[in-house]
């Protein structure tokens, strides 16, 4: 056991910090909650690419750096600390690239991996459908084989960032007769393909982040199928542990915590800093302990991946735990701010530029996205602890 970082890791962290400090100094981006997911900047991603920070864990033969998942976690921790605008490459880097490496053929690898690594394309995930949220095997979007093509019809929903991306990585049904989970395949699709329509969904924070994506007789070349036909669900299950593992599930509203701690130190109540209020102290210390526990969970997953092992229940547990922490944080922040906790970004008198209230709205989604809290707990219990799966 060892809870320290190596010298190389420390110096890598410093390198990332230096880079980010310079970017912040020159006003490249603002430190704002959810910025990592909402702020897409091809320019910024290209700069990261130049430093080898996209696809950094991938094999060298695909242009990667073969660095460890620990290094990637360090990179992410720094990026998330200041909520750097990494949305352009984030999903492709975290998930699509590794999926292509695992399941794609040589053409896929040649076609997409360099573009991902060079920040030339942006990708999103098309998983959920109106009647397939937590229950992904129920996807109905159907790809019918016709000659060299699949003809795609159906609809995705909650597709984050589809309005600014180039490609969508999706699961669709390719066999209507097989058992649900044995008739799903994975595809990659250019969002500019005729027949694809992206419609915005405005979330309760008033932001366009989600989309509906409609497919009407979309001609998809057969080579866009990735991996084995009708094995898509199993392929996907192997991928989601990467999705669930990251510090991005702990730090989505990290600036709220940092700013809150600073705020209570400065803000006076009854002639002394708000930080001297015992309820405030207890609440913030509790959040700090919970945060540090979450951080250890995240690094534990990164360490497991670094060992070349796939996390068992740990990734699901980590996400379940961390997103609940983020919710408690936003709730506590609004409470500690009192009446000011109501004020939204841009409002006069809003402390922390309204991030507390804003994050309280966003936090609803934290325990839903990428597997609801309940589904994740089921996974921990059944896959992790070996409890029996209930008959349905």
């Amino acid at each position, binding site marked *: 056991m060892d809870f320290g970082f190596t010298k190389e890791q420390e110096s890598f962290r410093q390198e990332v910090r230096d880079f980010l400090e310079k970017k912040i100094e020159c006003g490249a981006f603002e430190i704002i909650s959810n910025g990592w997911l909402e702020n897409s900047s091809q320019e910024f991603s290209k700069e990261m690419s130049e430093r080898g920070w996209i696809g950094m864990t991938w094999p060298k033969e695909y242009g990667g750096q073969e660095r460890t998942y620990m290094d990637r976690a360090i990179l992410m921790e720094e990026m998330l600390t200041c909520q750097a605008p990494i949305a352009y490459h984030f999903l492709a880097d975290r998930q699509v690239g590794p999926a292509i490496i695992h399941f794609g053929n040589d053409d896929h690898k040649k076609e997409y991996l360099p573009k991902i690594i060079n920040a030339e394309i942006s990708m999103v995930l098309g998983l*959920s459908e109106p*009647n397939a*949220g*937590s*229950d992904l095997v*129920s996807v109905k979007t159907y790809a019918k084989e016709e000659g060299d093509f699949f003809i795609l019809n159906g609809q995705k*929903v*909650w597709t984050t960032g589809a309005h600014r991306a180039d490609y969508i990585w999706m699961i669709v049904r390719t066999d209507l007769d097989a058992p649900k989970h044995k008739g799903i395949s994975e595809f990659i699709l250019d969002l500019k393909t005729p027949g694809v329509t992206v419609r915005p*969904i*405005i*979330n*309760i924070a*008033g932001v366009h982040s*989600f989309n509906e994506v409609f497919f009407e007789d979309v001609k998809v070349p057969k080579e866009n199928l990735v991996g084995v036909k009708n094995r898509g669900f199993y392929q996907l299950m192997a991928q989601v542990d990467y999705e669930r593992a990251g510090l991005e599930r702990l730090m989505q509203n990290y600036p709220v915590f940092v700013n809150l701690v600073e705020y209570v130190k400065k803000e006076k*109540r*009854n002639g002394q800093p708000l930080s001297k209020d015992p*309820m405030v102290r207890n609440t913030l210390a509790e959040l700090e302990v919970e945060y540090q526990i979450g951080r250890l969970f995240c690094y534990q997953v990164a360490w497991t991946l670094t060992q070349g092992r796939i996390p068992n229940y740990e990734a699901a547990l980590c996400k379940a735990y961390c997103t609940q922490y983020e*919710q408690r944080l936003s*709730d506590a922040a*609004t*409470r500690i701010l*009192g*009446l*000011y*906790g*109501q*004020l*939204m*970004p*841009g*409002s*006069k*008198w*809003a402390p922390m530029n*309204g991030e507390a*209230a804003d994050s*309280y*709205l966003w936090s*609803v*989604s934290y*325990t*839903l*996205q990428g597997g*609801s*809290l*309940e589904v994740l*707990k089921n996974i921990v219990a059944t896959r992790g602890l070996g409890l029996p799966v209930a008959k*349905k």
Partner: protein
Amino acid sequence: MDFGLSEEQEILRKSTCNVMEKECPPAFVKETIKDEKGYSPELWRKMAELGWMGFIFPESYGGIDGSFLDFTILLEEMGRACLPSPFFSTVILGGLPILEGGNEEQKDELLPPMINGDLILTLAITEPPGKYTPDGIGSRATKSEKGYILDGTKLFVPNAHIADYIIVVARTKDGVDADGITLFLVDAKARGVTCTPLLTIAGDKQFEVALDKVEVTHERILGDIDKGWHIIEKIWPKVIVAACGEMVGGAQQTLKMTIDYAKEREQFGRPLGCLQAVQHFCADMVADVDGCRYITYQAAWMLSEGLSCVKEVAMAKAWCSDAFKRVTKQGQQVHGAIGFTEEHDLHLYYKSAKKWELLYGDSWFHREAVAEQMGL
């Protein structure tokens, strides 16, 4: 003890509910919140015609002299509908202090038009310290020839932009005590009054009201000089219980929407509500909602009966603040992503719960009051 509504109360509840369902559906709420005014003058007029503004005011001013308990039923239905309107600020924050502290001329002048729906009122109490206690009041009222000159900054003043009068709580004597505070009826259009909107989580209209050498005549003083805080203290339990009344309705509606959704929505090949996790969420929500209802109506009943109920009022707000919030959080979790969209109605309640939690003291604040009452 009687936990049921009387026949009259049931009729009141039902008729209010019908009006709200017809006139204030969620689409109306969302539209109105986005509107700069933040209310519908047409609906406002209807509410006046129904006698709502005068519900707890004496018949001599055109009111119907209803009980505060029955009034809470009205508020519950407004909360259930998430009604955006200056009702709370006009009737509770504005009307009650006038009724309590005003002289006969002031009451004759202001209450009938308020009851008729011709007057919108509000109260400017909170200042940058963000408190509801005398030590949070720093705005100065300086004596002048004609009366007083007001200076200061008020925050979180609801509906200041549409109010005819703003009741301003200001200091006529230096210090931090209750003694030395006076209430002033300030014409919202008076020179020196500047209202700047604040953007709030629930989209309700709250304002910064800057007072810069605002002149107020002697006639516009509400109650006795230096003794204004007594008026606030008198009405404050009603303010809190009225807030709780709205919370009861909001919590109840959130529960209803969630149960309906759990019954309809299919997942994993069966209704969501089959899942034990969802069932237990819903069971927890019922405890929260029923708790809100009983503890609130207990306080409202005591207020109606004129019984001392400092502790019961604090308990109501302490419980409702946490419980309504929990209910909306669990409701969101059951709804999943659909509830996170602006298009859906659930967020109205999620936001509303946070608003009501923070207004008039959260559970920390009110538990401290309960502790006080317990002799701790």
